[in-house]
């Protein structure tokens, strides 16, 4: 039987053993700090140099100014390029989300002949280098005498975004408990109502995530756009062309704003999600 040892003094753990365990436990956390610093150095640099009073060539620190933020369209062409990127991004997001979501439902919810071929067709555009996607599409447009420009760029963007939408939405559908739909039907909802009131609301966060991903892929794309946009200028193209001479600080303003905007959207999404799941 047990004996009571309550009156014994409290044994303590030697410092050395404690420290080595602490270090072992926190090594990864220390690493994490370095990892994130590495990831954010260029972001911080871009943000810092958006306040540079540098005029056209934003290479060396010349002094602090808020002028670039007060006049983001100050550099020639920059807001035109930004506008094009936003328009292309919005259209590409809309179409690729619709097409991709439909495909995701077909693959994620039904068993049918040709399902694995369908999966392959979705995987292939992701496994093809962007330069090949861009070049092949340009060749096709040239064959049909379609001039590169706004709509060819939208089409190109929809094409490479669809696969990413499918993968994202499919993952969400796969994580759904099929019993929820069965429960809805058990509670007198027909197929259409079940879809509208149960399935769609549950998949919605996945669709929203996919749309955000599609927009950021489209907005940031350079290689495919470069092939199919002709003389149309987008924000990445503007930066690339300007890079040779040194980019204006307004580009840093726009880059930083996009960063904070996207971060705000993601964090808001997280908060909404957290409140709902409470």
């Amino acid at each position, binding site marked *: 039987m047990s004996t009571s040892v309550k009156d014994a003094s409290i044994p303590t753990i030697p410092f050395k053993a404690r420290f080595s365990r602490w270090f072992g436990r926190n090594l990864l956390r220390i690493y994490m700090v370095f990892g994130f610093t590495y990831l954010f150095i260029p972001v911080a640099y871009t943000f810092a140099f958006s306040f540079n009073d540098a005029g056209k060539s934003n290479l060396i620190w010349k002094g602090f100014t808020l002028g670039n933020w007060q006049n983001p369209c100050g550099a020639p062409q920059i807001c035109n390029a930004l506008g094009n990127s936003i328009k292309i991004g919005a259209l590409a997001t809309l179409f690729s989300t619709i097409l991709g979501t439909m495909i995701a439902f077909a693959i994620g919810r039904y068993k049918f002949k040709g399902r694995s071929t369908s999966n392959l*067709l979705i*995987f292939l555009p992701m496994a093809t280098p962007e*330069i090949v996607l861009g070049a092949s599409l340009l060749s096709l447009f040239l064959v049909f005498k379609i001039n590169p420009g706004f709509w060819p760029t939208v089409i190109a963007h*929809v094409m490479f975004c669809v696969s990413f939408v499918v993968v994202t939405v499919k993952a969400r559908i796969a994580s759904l408990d099929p019993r929820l739909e069965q429960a809805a039907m058990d509670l007198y909802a027909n197929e259409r109502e079940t879809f509208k009131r149960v399935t769609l609301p549950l998949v919605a966060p996945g669709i929203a995530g996919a749309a955000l991903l599609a927009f950021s892929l489209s907005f940031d794309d350079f290689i495919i756009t470069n092939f199919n946009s002709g003389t149309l200028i987008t924000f990445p193209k503007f930066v690339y062309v300007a890079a040779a001479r040194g980019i204006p600080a307004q580009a840093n303003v726009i880059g930083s704003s996009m960063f904070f905007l996207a*971060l705000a959207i993601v964090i808001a999404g997280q908060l909404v999600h957290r409140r709902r799941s409470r």
Partner: protein
Amino acid sequence: MSFTLPKVRVPYLLLFPGFAFLFTFFILPIANLAQTSTQTPIPGGDTGQYQQTFAFSNYLNAFLDNREQFARSFIYATLATVFALAIAYPLAYAIAFKSGKFKNIFLVLVVAPFFTSFLLRTIAWKQILGEEGFVVPTLRNLHVMGQSTTITSTAVAVVAGMTYNFLPFMTLPLYASLERIDPRTIEASGDLYANGITTFRRVTVPLSLPGVVAGTLLTFIPAAGDYVNASILGSPNTKMIGNVIESRYFKIVDYPTAAALSFTLMAAILILVTLYIRKAGTEELV
């Protein structure tokens, strides 16, 4: 609307618009690219006018003329993939197992740099590591670097740039597969006389293999076809196959060679990827 349609047709109806689109703007262009790749210039025609002559020698010539760039593309992409894996694995591991309730915040932070244009970030690196940044002068003053040595315009810069730019593509799938591991299996391994290293080798790595495979593919494929890092951070001596394809298209207007190069690149990547997936033994990727 009511569901009077036979149920069998529903998936096909859902697939139709998307697949019609992908067929027209992905399959057809690739087929057309194949067609273009065996054309030759029309004798006496203008620049940019070609006819189909089934000149498969285009492939041989394209490959032989650009062996160096091909080799460079695959070496740089492999290096960038290996470095990204080395950096991302501990990071993904830490987020999955050590960040507690801040998990989602850290995940957002991994993706966040993405939202600043990747060109801006690449140019930022160029300026940070360039002659006028503070890193190079500091290292020179400390005599770590020679007075005439540079970081930018070298292969090191190109590989580093690619490593940086594709890091989130590596981190996210790694995180996804690590996060799925039941932490109790890792504890069980320790309980069964495996020390940290053995546990990592025998339990953690095998269980995270699908993420390793997905991450390396998502990094390697775009890296092998990339030309932006090479043109911003590199020099003529670091040209990759992407740079060649780009200039064949836009500067020389040599469509057949560009097409043949694109096809060779795609085929090489597909073969490597297939071999790799076989070796890794995971086929649940698709």
